[in-house]
């Protein structure tokens, strides 16, 4: 089957520095223009097109990139990812509606709290592996939701309302009816996340995650402090989700515990798996498609989860590496081993 990932990579490798800059800037500019394409074939029949671009599409891409650090890079199946999103969102909601802090001041607090809870969850639970880890994280996600649901300080099932919009940037106002500015903020956050992941991937943490994913015991024997790097991947994933949560709360202006169910974790996982676990371009493509399609095609909107469930099964059974698999490096290794024989 055609490997789009390899095709893309070969174009990238053949081009020089100037061409690469051109490709990157061009792509970013094209994506940044997306909010203006509302009247083309991309238009969404049910929800407002501009809003769809921010949530689900943009947010899904952002969170899928974060979850990809955990599931894709280090191979830890985290089913409680929504917890960090919820913690970010509730930080924004509670601080934003009860203090005078604005979104950008709350953002670091939300990220810090999400990271801290990542450590809290990671320290004990990363000692168990595989299926058990999936269950423990799932339990953690539910506990966080139930605590928000049953506590008075979080206003229980009624949720928190009166969350302020972000303050103006460069004289531009954030408006609910025109969400271009939100989209651009999400885009900047996505770019920062991509930059972070690419930096880390080629350095020590990236190599450690790769080793852990392939064989945790072997990695440990080789002197990789596995627990430390597993927690790091958890915490970085949590930070991205926390940031996404802060922005989400600041965009919807109202949040309630029912927005943070297990389904969100599953949807994000679905984005990662569908696009190609471990490959950031695949993850971005997968999240964008899965975020966008239900709003484009009316039928899917009702049966969204059903379609996603079937996608998970089908992709795992017939194309377990996803849309854009991360094959290249592994394939190269195999070829090298073949010639040496």
């Amino acid at each position, binding site marked *: 089957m055609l490997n789009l990932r390899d095709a893309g990579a070969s174009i990238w490798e053949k081009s020089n520095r100037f061409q690469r800059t051109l490709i990157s800037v061009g792509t970013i500019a094209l994506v940044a223009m997306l909010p203006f394409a509302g009247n083309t074939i991309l238009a969404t029949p049910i929800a407002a097109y501009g809003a769809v671009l921010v949530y689900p599409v943009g947010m899904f891409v952002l969170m899928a990139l974060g979850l990809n650090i955990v599931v894709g890079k280090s191979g830890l199946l985290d089913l409680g990812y929504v917890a960090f999103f919820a913690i970010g969102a509730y930080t924004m909601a509670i601080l934003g509606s009860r203090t005078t802090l604005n979104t950008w001041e709350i953002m670091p607090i939300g990220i810090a709290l999400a990271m801290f809870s990542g450590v809290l969850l990671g320290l004990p639970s990363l000692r168990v592996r*595989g299926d058990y880890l999936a269950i423990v994280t799932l339990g953690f996600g539910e506990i966080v939701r*139930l605590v928000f649901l049953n506590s008075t300080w979080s206003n229980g099932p009624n949720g928190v309302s009166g969350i302020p919009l972000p303050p103006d940037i460069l004289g531009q106002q954030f408006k609910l009816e025109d969400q271009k500015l939100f989209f651009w903020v999400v885009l900047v956050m996505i770019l920062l996340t991509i930059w972070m992941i690419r930096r880390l991937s080629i350095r020590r943490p990236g190599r450690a995650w790769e080793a852990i994913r392939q064989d945790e015991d072997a990695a440990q024997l080789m002197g990789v402090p596995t627990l430390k790097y597993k927690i790091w991947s958890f915490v970085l994933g949590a930070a991205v989700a926390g940031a996404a949560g802060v922005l989400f709360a600041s965009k919807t202006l109202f949040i309630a515990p029912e927005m943070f169910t297990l389904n969100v974790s599953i949807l994000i996982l679905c984005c990662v798996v569908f696009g190609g676990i471990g490959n950031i371009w695949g993850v971005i493509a997968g999240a964008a498609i899965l975020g966008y399609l239900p709003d484009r095609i009316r039928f899917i909107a009702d049966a969204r989860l059903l379609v996603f469930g079937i996608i998970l*099964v089908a992709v795992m059974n017939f194309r377990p590496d996803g849309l854009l698999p991360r094959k290249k490096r592994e394939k190269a290794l195999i070829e090298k081993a073949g010639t040496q024989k």
Partner: protein
Amino acid sequence: MFNVFIHQFWQLTFSGIALGFIYVLISLGYTMVYGVLRMINFANSEIFMWGTFATVIVGRDFFDYTLTSEPVHGVKLVLVLLVSLLASMAVSGIVAVFVEFVAYRRLRARGTNRLATLISAIGTSIALAEVMRLLTHSRPTGAPRILEKVILAEVWGANIRLDNVLTIVAAGIIFVLLERFVKLSRMGKAIRAASMNEDAAKLMGVNLNQVITATFLVGGLATGAASFFYVTVFEITKFNVGFTMGLAAFTAAVLGGIGNIRGAFFGGLFLGLLETYASAILGTQWKAVSVFLVLILALLFRPNGLFGEAVQQTRA
């Protein structure tokens, strides 16, 4: 806070045991599959959920009882209950085999990694739940009251209700039957052989595919029986009923030492009691949290379960 707990201790204990027996049967669906495949049967919660709907549909559409009809008595009662039980076991058994076929078989044949299999099982689970959600329009479905909830006796202030007694006795019998099946029958021996050492079992002429299907089937039958008792006691079901029940039963399986059938028995009872006590002390809204906490603590400190040593030996 402890008032309710102290005053109603025996009542809570009794209904906790009845709930525990339901958990025992569901946790068989997890524990048996884990024993053979070394993988969590993620879709077992939906297998349970489909069973509850089978029970409701048999009572409502096959025997034409409505929510307002009078409870049934005598021979007819036995007949209706038996047909419902068998139907829900059959549906759950079929769904379980379907799950194995769709989610596990192809991936197992190709020998792909565990993550892929787990995700495929999660996908199947979501799809099963979603189909039911769309069919029932997310609404809860009430079951007709077929069995009158007579209070048989009062012991230490606890009402001994007929439906609870039925659950304890019948679930106990079904558990013993299944346990004997795994212990004594030819297929049961094959299942145990496969869970001890897959390759050796294959070399001894065990048809692994058949054994795995049989394991899912037995687990599904047990889970289906649990669905029937659940509907008999609670008289209501919903598309997402499997989620909390499944997690609690999974916790029970872990507590008993996953893969260990007898362990599942004690784990189930323990969890039934714990959940009932916890909701009396902390309030029902914290019930699920207490189950999750116990699960997490169990996985961290006793990952082989409270009674897991025996299984650990056979595995090594």
